[in-house]
């Protein structure tokens, strides 16, 4: 680097370093990203075409894994279950989310602004805890809802069976509905209200407006949301594992898990399932991105952002307010309360006066003294902070290259860095496991393998946050730094990073939250000593220590809640300062 004086670069030019610092950083970044994005995928595909490697025999090429997978009638059932589960979940969450978004955006339902503020809370509860809570609520044997209704009607009829395809769709759909709500809210908000008003002035009735204008215009957003939900639910692991596996309902993710966990592991079969799942998610993501990019043709010039007239629902608004309340109870309050209740019991029992007398905090002290508890907490914290920081720095460089430079083939870098988006967590776990079993570079069985997995999996999120803020930095701000005599490194550190700060921090916190909750990749990669919190929860579940699990879950949710509130306050402060 050039030495700089107060007046800029010194007049005597030092000899140019052999490798420019800028190109060094760019080169390293491209290498890391390509390595993370492509190598596991290549290995997964290679492995799915290979015979198992043993001490005596090297791996050979074979299509046998696929033949085995596809000639098995079980696979057809697998396809069927996965499809019904994913389609059902996306339909359910989207109907719910769209209804809530419409009520919130276009009607005069009371307390709707409060509801919008509360809408992020459900996103905090990790899927595994949400699922466990619903087992407490609606399992055939111990479900509180069942027992309450049975007592009420004096019958032993099972009203709800959570261990079924319907139960899986219910739990997953509820859990994803806040995301559908946020997606559809954004869609409703981005719609220019004068498009509807001009139809009104043309003499169209409400029905005509809804079907000929609103729905038609919302269609791309709705369809994109369907695809996002479909991909999310087909790659989800927690609900199929906890609710599907006990009932023998297998989907792809749980089938992969079973193939790995059986003895001996059937990595080839897991690989062929994983590749199949990968193809399905790739198709989904491909179409979704295609719709999103063609959606821009629907964005016309917008006027002066008049808030659309809120529809007066009259007496019906008490019904819609009721729906808000019931929804919030089902998705946050009741699941959380049932976890709290269970955490205070020595053995799980249904709430009753008698059980109320045996309340104790024993579980909490048990969890705090649990051998792997402290270790898992420090592992989780270390991993999430480490991967969030690395990801944000790495993707900052990537999106600088993509957005600001004219390097040929830069679009490919963007695609490679976004590639992990199509990896379901469990598929990524399989690929990374295979890779580092084959190439023993000493990461298998350590925290590093989890670090690599998190880095790969959440890289696209970091990229998205950074790209958004990078787009807003005008090229001239950099150029004027260069004219002032700053080197590229200094410009990046002193100009670009500070300007990207709000997006950077928001992305960092988001990655921290998603990686601290991560389960589906970790479950194939952890080993004793490298457990994370969600793995401890999983272990407690497998051991049947439900009340201990609840205690850990309650603490976990509270910690996450505090983290998210902190994030809200922090981003608000940054936002105010910069606007």
């Amino acid at each position, binding site marked *: 680097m050039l030495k700089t004086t107060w007046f800029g670069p010194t007049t005597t030019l030092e000899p140019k370093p052999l490798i420019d610092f800028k190109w060094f950083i760019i080169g390293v970044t491209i290498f890391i990203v390509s390595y993370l994005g492509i190598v596991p995928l290549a290995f997964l595909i290679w492995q799915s075409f290979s015979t198992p490697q043993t001490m005596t025999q090297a791996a050979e090429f074979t299509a046998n894994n696929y033949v085995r997978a596809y000639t098995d009638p079980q696979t057809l059932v697998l396809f069927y279950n996965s499809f019904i589960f994913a389609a059902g979940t996306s339909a359910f969450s989207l109907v719910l989310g769209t209804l809530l978004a419409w009520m919130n955006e276009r009607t005069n339902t009371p307390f709707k602004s409060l509801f919008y503020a509360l809408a992020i809370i459900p996103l905090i509860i990790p899927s595994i805890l949400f699922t466990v809570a619903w087992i407490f609520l609606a399992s055939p044997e111990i479900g509180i809802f069942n027992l309450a209704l049975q007592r009420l009607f004096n019958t032993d009829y099972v009203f709800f069976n959570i261990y079924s395809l319907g139960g899986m769709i219910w739990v997953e759909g509820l859990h994803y509905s806040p995301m559908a709500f946020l997606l559809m809210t954004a869609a409703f908000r981005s719609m220019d209200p004068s*498009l509807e*008003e001009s139809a009104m*002035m043309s*003499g169209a009735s409400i029905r*005509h407006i809804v079907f*000929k204008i609103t729905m038609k215009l919302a269609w791309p957003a709705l369809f994109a949301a369907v695809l996002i939900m479909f991909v999310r639910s087909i790659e989800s692991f927690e609900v199929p594992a906890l609710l599907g596996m006990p009932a023998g309902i297998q989907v792809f993710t749980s089938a992969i898990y079973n193939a790995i966990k059986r003895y001996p592991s059937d990595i080839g079969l897991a690989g062929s399932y994983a590749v199949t799942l990968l193809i399905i998610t790739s198709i989904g993501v491909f179409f979704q991105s295609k719709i999103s990019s063609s959606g821009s043709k629907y964005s016309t*010039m917008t*006027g002066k952002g008049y808030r659309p007239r809120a529809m007066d629902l009259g007496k019906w608004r008490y019904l819609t307010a009721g729906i808000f309340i019931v929804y919030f109870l089902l998705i946050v309050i009741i699941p959380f309360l049932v976890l709290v209740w269970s955490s205070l019991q020595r053995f799980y029992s249904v709430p009753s006066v008698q059980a109320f007398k045996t309340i104790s905090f024993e579980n909490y002290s048990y969890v705090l003294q649990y051998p792997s508890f402290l270790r898992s907490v420090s592992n989780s914290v270390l991993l999430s902070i480490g991967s969030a920081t690395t990801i944000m720095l790495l993707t900052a460089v990537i999106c600088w290259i993509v957005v600001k430079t004219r390097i040929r083939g830069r679009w490919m870098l963007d695609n490679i860095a976004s590639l992990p988006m199509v990896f379901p967590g469990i598929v990524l776990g399989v690929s990374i496991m295979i890779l580092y079993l084959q190439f023993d570079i000493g990461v298998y069985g350590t925290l590093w393998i989890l670090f690599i997995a998190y880095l790969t999996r959440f890289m696209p999120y970091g990229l998205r946050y950074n790209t958004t803020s990078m787009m807003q930095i005008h090229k001239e701000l950099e150029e004027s730094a260069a004219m002032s005599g700053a080197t590229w490194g200094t410009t990046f550190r002193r100009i670009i990073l500070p300007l990207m700060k709000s997006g950077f921090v928001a992305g960092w916190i988001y990655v921290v939250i998603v990686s601290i909750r991560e389960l589906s990749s970790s479950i194939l990669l952890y080993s004793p000593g490298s457990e994370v919190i969600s793995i401890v929860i999983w272990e407690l579940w497998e051991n049947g220590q439900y009340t201990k699990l609840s205690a850990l879950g309650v603490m976990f949710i509270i910690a996450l809640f505090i983290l998210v509130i902190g994030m809200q306050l922090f981003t608000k402060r940054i936002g105010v300062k910069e606007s």
Partner: protein
Amino acid sequence: MLNVRALYKEFPNDQGETVKAAQDITLEVPEGKLFTMLGPSGCGKTTTLRSIAGLERPTSGEITVDGKLMYSSEKKVFVQPNRRDIGMVFQSYAIWPHMDVFKNTAFPLEVGKKKLSKKQIEEKVLRALHVVALDGLESREATKLSGGQQQRLALARALVMEPKLLLLDEPLSNLDAKLRERMRFELKRLQRDLGITSIYVTHDQSEALALSNQIAVMNAGRIIQIGTPREIYEKPGSQFVADFIGSTNFVEGVVESVVGEGYILAKTKIGLIKAYSAQEPVPGSKVVISIRPENIHVSHERPTDGNVAEGQIDTRIFLGEYVDLQLKVGESLLQARTHPSLRYPAGTQVYLGMDPEKCIALLDAKSPPAEKIVVSKAVS
């Protein structure tokens, strides 16, 4: 044709305070005329327009269109906007991106009360598109149109159902300057040829002057003055109107005497000025005299009649079509607009001639700030 009486609209803002968006709006628009509501943003012009459209429900007042009651707080009448039969052009044009040009234009005919045959619809659509000179673009995707074409499409869509009343909400504000000027002429011609009663909302004073039969200047939710463009420009009734329409010099003074026939004599920093006054002020009261830059005649020779002041050219700006002079009269600065053939260099001693008829004495509650003379922003 359109009657608005004592229209009042309030709504709570984000902080929960009540905002009075429109107060005591009363106006009458005769058949076939173009009426403009002009004012800065937040003056209530759009609220009034949207109340006429029915997109906003006023708090109180009464609106009649073509003798039919559209809204009345007393009689509890509110006709839904889709039953009002009013055409409207939105600021964003609100062209539906999922329909082509033909479908956009045909929509009002398809959803309206009257059932029309396919052939009738086609005929009407083609006629409307012809009127706005979009012939031949029927099957073009609406989003593939240029800004000016989208604007004309929005107009065709508003006209196709042959409404009694046409509402235009800043229709030209999204166009670039050259196109805006051309569309101004086209709009004027179209409106006159079709003879359609139109309400036009804008914050652009030159647009208002160019297009309107009548202008209502609005500020802070109220109508300040209603008149023809010439009346508004030449005989502003208040400092706000004089300042908002065109550019002007404000000279503060004290009334010496009333000379009859609507004229007063006022003592000012630039001398004794005879000025027109609509009211009859008491001698000794404070007035502000508005003198437009183009009404200050600059010459070497002392003018024989009218108000005369002596000054020096301070700055001289050549603008092609005219030359703007900044004149120093005593301590005061005045702006004058002269013909480019006038070639006095800066520093020249000159006489300023001002026709008393063009010097407007205004009795305003607000006096202009600090310096006695305020040279308002030039027309841009």
